[in-house]
């Protein structure tokens, strides 16, 4: 193997764009929502399910999913959970602060190929973040898609994200929306139980339903089992994986699962591809 390296057009991969925070909302104790504008209001140009590398000089970078739909112009949105060093600092930022943005990176949901299909969304915890991009995309292109069914589960009512969206989804007679919490509170009137309890009751047009699943690693096994019982064909299932990431461009090796780089071939995978990746689920 010998490559004429002088013929290769090289790219500057590690320079972020300095973007501005234009709105901030606190969802829960741990999660905040940010609206972000690239220089000149340029579009990010992402697909639902893709992520960006968000950075603060002096603190580092982290992969964060884009939570707004590409149909939204002028700015894009992130929802960030405070878990460690960088995310803690990001939570301290307010309107007018700047962050570094690289991306969008990775493979998102192939929304074109979903056209005409029913869309079943299954989001656990913070997994709803990338799914919201897909949900809003479908809502904004409503006539191109069939039914939109949203299953959303959180640990408890305090951890539910996107309060405004939830109200909207609930109200809309165009959306079938089911929500559950692992543990209810006295005020909680809805379902309690893990997200898989919502699956058996669904009435689905099987070959015509695309399922998009995102959640914590532990959720996938159980959801996939339920989907199997429900006889949803593997070809109709898409899921998004989380791995440690440093570069986002297929170089640093941190996100690798067998031959696959999650930052390039994922984070969204077509389930049949994943079945052959030994360490994936």
């Amino acid at each position, binding site marked *: 193997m010998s490559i004429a390296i002088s013929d*290769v057009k090289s790219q500057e991969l590690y*320079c972020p764009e300095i973007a501005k925070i234009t709105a901030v909302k606190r969802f829960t104790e741990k999660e905040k929502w940010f609206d972000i504008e690239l220089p000149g209001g340029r579009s990010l140009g992402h697909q639902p399910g893709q992520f960006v590398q968000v950075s603060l000089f002096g603190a*580092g970078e982290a992969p964060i999913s884009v939570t707004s739909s590409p149909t939204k112009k002028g700015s894009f949105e992130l929802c960030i959970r405070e878990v460690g060093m960088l995310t803690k600092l990001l939570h301290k930022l307010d309107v007018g602060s700047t962050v570094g943005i690289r991306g969008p990176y990775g493979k998102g949901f192939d929304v074109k190929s979903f056209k005409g299909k029913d869309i079943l969304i299954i989001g656990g915890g913070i997994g709803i973040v990338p799914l919201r991009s897909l949900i809003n995309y479908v809502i904004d292109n409503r006539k191109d898609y069939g039914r939109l069914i949203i299953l959303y589960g959180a640990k408890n009512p305090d951890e539910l994200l996107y309060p405004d969206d939830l109200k909207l989804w609930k109200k809309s007679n165009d959306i079938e929306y089911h929500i559950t919490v692992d543990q209810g509170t006295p005020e909680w009137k809805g379902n309690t139980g893990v997200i898989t309890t919502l699956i058996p009751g669904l009435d689905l047009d099987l070959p015509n339903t695309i399922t998009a699943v995102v959640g914590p690693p532990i959720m996938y096994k159980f959801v996939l089992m339920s989907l199997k019982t429900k006889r949803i064909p593997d070809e109709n299932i898409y899921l998004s994986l989380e791995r440690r990431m440093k570069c986002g461009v297929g170089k640093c090796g*941190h996100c*690798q699962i*067998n031959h696959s780089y999650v930052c390039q071939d994922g984070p969204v995978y077509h389930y049949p591809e994943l079945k052959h990746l030994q360490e994936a689920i």
Partner: protein
Amino acid sequence: MKKYQLNNKQLPSFIDHLKKQGTVFAPHKKGDTSYSFEKVENPNSVVLDYNRTLNSVKKYFLPPREHLLSFSKTDNSFRKGSFKNEKKIFLGVHSYDMKAVLKLDYNFSQGNPEENYLQRRKDSSFIGVSFIPDEFHFSQSVGIPLHDTEGFDIYLEQNSDGYTVKIITEKGEKLIDGFDRVSKAKDISSNHVQFQNKLKYNYNRLPEVFEQSWNAAVWEEVSKKCVGCGTCNLVCPTCYCFDVEDNLDLSLQTGTRDRSWDGCMLNGFAAVAGGENFRETLAERQRHRVHRKFKYISDITGEPWCVGCGRCTAYCTAGISIVEIVNQLCDEYEQNYLNRPAVVGLNAERL
């Protein structure tokens, strides 16, 4: 191919001749028994007769530590790291290390071609030198003949008086141009070197073995001896994983975004916030490392991504040998999938 003879005593003046054309890097003695590539100041301290260098020439294209950016928090500005544009001549490279550079070329130019690597890598010339394989080399077993000249501009083959100089490329021709003390190569006998095949299977049968390697017993066995120090990753000429970390200087306003070599044998390599570690055990990490050398990239490129330099084995304090790992995989494969015992000795090739 043009050939010349370069006698041992002409070597310093040959190096001086090269130095006039660019910065020359060559092996030097390091420590008690080791060698390393260094910039040549004094031609007499260059050692061409060496077993292996601690790090390969990879360090010049992907430095152990580098600034990706330098930034200022005050005005949110940054500058990217700079690359010195100089003509570089690498003298005394072994064939397996040359092959490793070509493999890295692939890794850094496919997908998203990386400027940092490619900028440093351009304007490089390579002058190879033959070597006498020691107990750790097995490059021939992974398809790199002892005198493989691919990638070299000039190749020096050791003989009883010095070196037979073989001009491989036009660039090589230019490098030697004007050095008038080279006489036409006489028929001086080359040092007769035997290279034993150390892998049980010829390398082109390894994909078959690695189809069945996931659940092999060897991973668990090796992990009992392994301390997870990461040495085998960091010394490998085809490893290129890295970590990125921001560092502030004392002003607390300016600083650098730095990358440094990392390795998949290290505990935190695949760990994420929240406590999940996707390769927690040493067995899983060892399996990942060896699969990266023999399967993941190889399935795509059709070549082993290990060049048989022997560094990971020579420098592993626990004495873990990649050759033994692969050979045990071959054994397990035979026992479990071919249902017949190993019949051919260690040094035979089976096609």
